[in-house]
């Protein structure tokens, strides 16, 4: 009988836990501050005896929400100590030059909540080292440069009657939106909204101030010249493009017709954060007969991003290691 009760308790506990963990449909995919992550797969400091070869593996994973296309990964070694001999690549990765790869990776999806990953490996050959030294500590570095999107999607309350003239109840209350992350290294942290009477009678203009932070571990690079940054040719860019802003029937497009004016765009860094202001144009003002409503707000940012990692490899003197 006791076993029966224990079984029931166990079943209840399992049922209670289900749904809050990984795989629950209620989990949001657009969370986290990572985009592409990379790490060397290692146990301690790898060692190799001079004249010998060492194989190492990397894990590259798209832990963010957006798709990574044609990303560049560059491996750097101290060539007089460790020489890259070959890559051993899974099918989807392509060798670009001796020390660089190109790849595409999907982000998090309902079917794969950790994002797609690949495990490329490479072989280096240790060169002869100075006889007088027991070992040389050599660094192997890796840079990855990619274009990425931050997609902010939250509910926005458009209060078309901020002074409470109308008697119809409001379906929502206008407020600033705060967020910590959207499944990308660049995060929209706050959206402030203000509404003003338009010059056209009986219509309103909405203004959104969008606050953005680079929350990831990498640096922002020019999305149009992102490969250069990994090849050591890139200039400092440190800007973000606001490519889309949409709610209900209103939208902003970086290239094309827009209901909004957004500036500055590209968005420059101001102290710690990046701020852009988007104001509905007079000709697109919201008519007063539109009652207060809640709507999904979509903001899309586009940027280039560069991340790096490195590992120490000890090259041992052949004679002394014996």
């Amino acid at each position, binding site marked *: 009988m006791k076993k029966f009760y224990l079984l029931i308790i166990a079943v209840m506990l399992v049922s209670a836990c289900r749904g809050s963990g990984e795989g629950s449909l209620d989990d949001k995919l657009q969370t986290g501050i990572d985009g592409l992550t990379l790490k060397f797969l290692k146990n301690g400091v790898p060692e190799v005896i001079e004249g010998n070869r060492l194989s190492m593996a990397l894990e590259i994973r798209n832990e963010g929400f957006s798709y990574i296309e044609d990303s560049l990964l560059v491996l750097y070694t101290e060539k007089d100590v460790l020489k890259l001999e070959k890559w051993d690549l899974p099918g989807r990765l392509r060798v670009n030059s001796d020390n660089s790869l190109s790849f595409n990776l999907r982000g998090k999806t*309902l079917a794969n909540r950790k994002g797609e990953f690949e495990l490329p490996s490479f072989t280096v050959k240790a060169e002869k080292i100075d006889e007088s030294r027991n070992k040389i500590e050599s660094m192997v570095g890796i840079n990855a440069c990619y274009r990425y999107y931050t997609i902010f999607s939250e509910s926005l309350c458009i209060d078309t009657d901020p002074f409470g003239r*109308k*008697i119809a109840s409001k379906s929502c209350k206008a407020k600033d939106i705060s967020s910590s992350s959207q499944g990308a290294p660049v995060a929209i942290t706050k959206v402030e909204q203000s509404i003003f009477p338009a010059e056209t009678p009986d219509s309103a203009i909405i203004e959104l101030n969008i606050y953005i932070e680079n929350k990831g571990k990498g640096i922002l690079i020019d999305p149009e010249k992102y490969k250069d940054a990994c090849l050591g040719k890139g200039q400092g860019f440190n800007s973000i493009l606001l490519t889309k802003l949409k*709610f209900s029937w209103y939208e902003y497009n970086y290239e094309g017709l827009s209901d909004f004016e957004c500036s500055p765009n590209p968005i420059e860094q101001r102290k710690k954060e990046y701020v852009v202001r988007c104001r509905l144009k007079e000709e697109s003002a919201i008519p007063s007969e539109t*009652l207060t409503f809640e709507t999904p707000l979509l903001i899309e940012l586009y940027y280039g991003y560069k991340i790096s990692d490195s590992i120490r490899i000890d090259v041992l003197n052949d004679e002394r290691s014996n």
Partner: protein
Amino acid sequence: MRFRVILAILLISLTVISCSPNRNREGERISDRDYRQGTKGLELEFMRNAPPDRVYSGDDMNLIVEIRNLGAYPTTDSFDGRLEVYGYDEKVFQGERWNGGPFISPTLQGRSQFSPEGGRENKEFHVDKVTTPFGSEAFKQRIIVAACYKYKTIAQPLVCIDPEPQSVFDESKVCTVDRNGKTYALGSQGAPVAVTRVEEEISSSNIHFSIEIKNVGRGKVVDENVRKECPLGLDFNDVDRVMASVKLPYDSSPKCQPKGDYTDPIRLDESGRGTIFCTFKKPPSKSAFETVLQITLDYRYVDEVYKDIEVINIDR
């Protein structure tokens, strides 16, 4: 002979049954019940799963609203009201319409001895397509259904008309009003706006009634003459306005302040209270008597019901 006796008994029984007053389920005689009680007009409620708690992109959707008239107006087929649906993003719910139009049936009578529970009607609102703009994962939409309808409050307090309140010698008076006047407390009258109190004072040549009314329902009182715009086009100038008519059997045109007509209605304050002060002539007779003070309030009323639903993008 026996057949005739049986037939006679049957006829007498039928007559007794048919002449006895009707009774409702609780056993009380219907004619005894006062239907002019309660603080409700219309009561709105969404039918279960219409709308559902969750809707998916690409689906159609139905809202069914059950409307019950729990007040005491009208007693004829003259109900005048309409429904509006709002509060949502019109890009999300496309191709929406009321089946049969937004107007509530004129047959939605209030409670009476012929309709003890009050009238009931279901209205269906159809949405052709639910969309999730810009590939949003899931988001909330609040759907508000508002009913704007004409309603009437009828209060008939029994008041004392004592033309000579100072005459202390007439001990056979039916009723008296003392020097400080008389106050009549009223409950509710089967309508969302109620006459809550009547104060009577008698001066040398007139009888004065101060009548206090209150919005006792959960909705908003709006001007009776704003049929078309109600409720979405109304602003704060249109609310808390009640028209009133006050009569005594012998004087149907008192001087009232405010007048209580369209140009000068009773204005309710922030707490939903308002007052009309009416001055009547004294009756020709000097004897005191009791009579009904007929108070009729006309207004429109807005009641609402809402539901939050989650819109989920399954195409993502």
